[in-house]
């Protein structure tokens, strides 16, 4: 018991650091994903076939290929293209970004040359989740009763105003639980950043676990790691459930639309 505790207490700072990187990457990734998702989701509802086609292409291609492959493409492909063509160095970009945010000490805590991995890893995850969220946004907008749109158009509102004041506020309430679910899966998928050597929670713990020879201590680290993930995700899941239950009595989505939402929902 003493041995277990001494092994753990030495490594707690590393684990906490990893957990912080996981949480920050998940938050930034989610924000970026929404930036990808909103135009793509609304674009899929556009009347213009070219815009619709382009957005469908993005959503289908990204949803049809694994995240791991996409991360490899971002890190080993896109970053090299940008480096050779525009001399864009993500490490310097990250450094400048953190300087602008007045938090340079954060950069010093990271391992050297990790900039491109974090930069393109987070963008890759956001690009991937943008497609899933776009489907949710589309399904949410479709779930709002058609009569609402017709009524507001009859009252003389423009299509933009209808979207902005009538449809989106109602759609948002339907979209919040599946978006929260996707956030849960995004937190879990930040574990993929370990393939780019970003020292987030799972890679940090793995590194520590592989240093020991004792199976018991190794499992101790895995249990701690899994428990941290479980606490983050399960609390988010409880929040999502509560929102869903509170919303259940609110607006009534159109028939069949909920099935579409369930389809857009990612199982993990």
């Amino acid at each position, binding site marked *: 018991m003493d041995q277990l505790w001494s092994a753990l207490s030495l490594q707690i700072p590393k684990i906490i650091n990893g957990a912080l990187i996981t949480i920050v990457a998940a938050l930034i990734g989610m924000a970026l994903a929404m930036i990808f998702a909103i135009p793509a989701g609304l674009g899929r509802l556009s009347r*213009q*076939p*070219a*815009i619709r*086609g*382009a957005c469908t292409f993005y959503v*289908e*291609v990204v*949803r*049809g*290929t*694994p*995240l*791991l*492959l996409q991360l*490899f*493409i971002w890190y*080993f*492909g896109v970053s*090299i*293209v940008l480096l*050779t*063509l525009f001399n864009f160095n993500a490490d310097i970009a990250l450094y400048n970004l953190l300087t602008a945010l007045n938090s340079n000490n954060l950069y010093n805590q990271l391992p050297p040359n990790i900039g491109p991995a974090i930069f393109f890893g987070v963008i890759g995850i956001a690009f991937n989740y943008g497609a899933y969220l776009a489907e949710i946004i589309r399904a949410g907008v479709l779930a709002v009763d058609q009569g609402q749109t017709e009524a507001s158009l009859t009252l003389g509102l423009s299509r933009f105003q209808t979207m902005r004041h009538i449809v989106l506020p109602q759609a948002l309430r339907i979209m919040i*639980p599946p978006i929260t*679910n996707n956030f*849960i899966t995004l937190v*879990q*998928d930040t*574990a*993929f950043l*370990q*393939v780019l050597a970003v020292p987030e929670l*799972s890679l940090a713990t*793995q590194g520590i*676990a*592989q240093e020991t020879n004792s*199976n018991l201590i*190794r*499992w101790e680290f*895995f249990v701690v*790691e*899994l428990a941290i*993930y*479980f606490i983050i*995700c*399960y609390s988010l*899941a*409880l929040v*999502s*459930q509560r929102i*869903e239950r509170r919303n259940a009595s609110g607006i009534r989505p159109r028939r069949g639309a909920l*099935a579409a939402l*369930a*389809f857009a929902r*990612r*199982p*993990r």
Partner: protein
Amino acid sequence: MRNFSRLRSIGISAVLIIIFVFIAMIFIGALDKSQVCAGSKTLAQVEACRAENILAPGNLLSHNWHFIQSTVTAFISGTDSNGIPYHSYFLKGLGLTVEFCFIAMPLAILLGLVLALMSRSKFDILRIPARAFVEFFRNTPLLVQLVAIYTGLAFLPSSFLNPFTAGVATLVLNYGAYECENLRAGIEAIDRGQGEAAATLGLRRVQTLRLIEIPQMIPIVLPPVLNDLIYMYKDSSILSLITIQELTAQTQGLARQHQALAWQFYIIGGIIYLLLSLPLGRLARVVEARIKSLKFNTKLDTTTIAIEVLVAAIVVSIIAGLLVNGFSLSNIGNSLASVFFSIALAIVLTASVAAVLGGIAYLISRLLRLVRGAGKGNRSAGGPPAKESGDGDVAVAAALSSSDL
């Protein structure tokens, strides 16, 4: 007037399409140019390469043509230094990916069925472990589970724990938890009266399940299960982290070995993934739209057919594995043995994880009950005696069994 507005919308579409195609061409041209630049040796060549204007129509077209041509030739006729064609690597990877999906998914469905029945049981000793198992596997990353099982259990004999069995067992455990939720939703959708009527007619529990409940569940659960199969197809890419040479690993390996063709390989790999996942997704949607209006032949034994389909999937996976490795007596024996060992590993892991987590969850639920009961006792000491409205056990059970995540 009407004609005019139609013409205008066609015109806008045409302009947009041209803009999109132009953007795509610039993107591909930039890829090709960066490959050419990376291939050039001296500094002067690099400078000249960088100075080339990608937006000039001639350059753009030639770069695009070069890129498409090199992608197609790399897939069709390209060979590595040993004379092995590139497409054989991709096909090998695809075979392994399909093998993993088709062996893990049927097992996951069976595990999900067991867990779903357990979590609907009225006995705590069955329900709480099942709920704890499901919530644990749904709320932790698949990647971490895989690494924990593979490196954490490395002390087991290598025939019992190798990359294959660890990968299959992790996929089964993780997806079993998700299938449990799907199947539970399916069971709950069936009218309770059906089960009661069957019981009145004298059917036993197993008979009710086989003859009444499962045939009605299948149309409800088929679309989400197909959907999960697509996710598993993509998620099996993480098996590349435990040295299994499936599609993503092959793509990444080729791209790493042949830097000059890296983008071509990534694009080929992506297209191969899309070739299976897009039709499967379309199929899931068609099934979802159609299946409720289909009339099932009640004389068919749907349950048996479903089990036959699952077994057939496992057989297909074994054959896919043999196609990858080549047919021979020892290969057949090996693959049968590895399937057997992965099923055994999955069962052992499920039982032990469910027991441990169930014990913890049971303890927590009892503790909560104790704490809440004490809190209520304190409150009621001063004021009027409070009515026991809900105890902690029920609250935890409700929290553990709430379905929608």
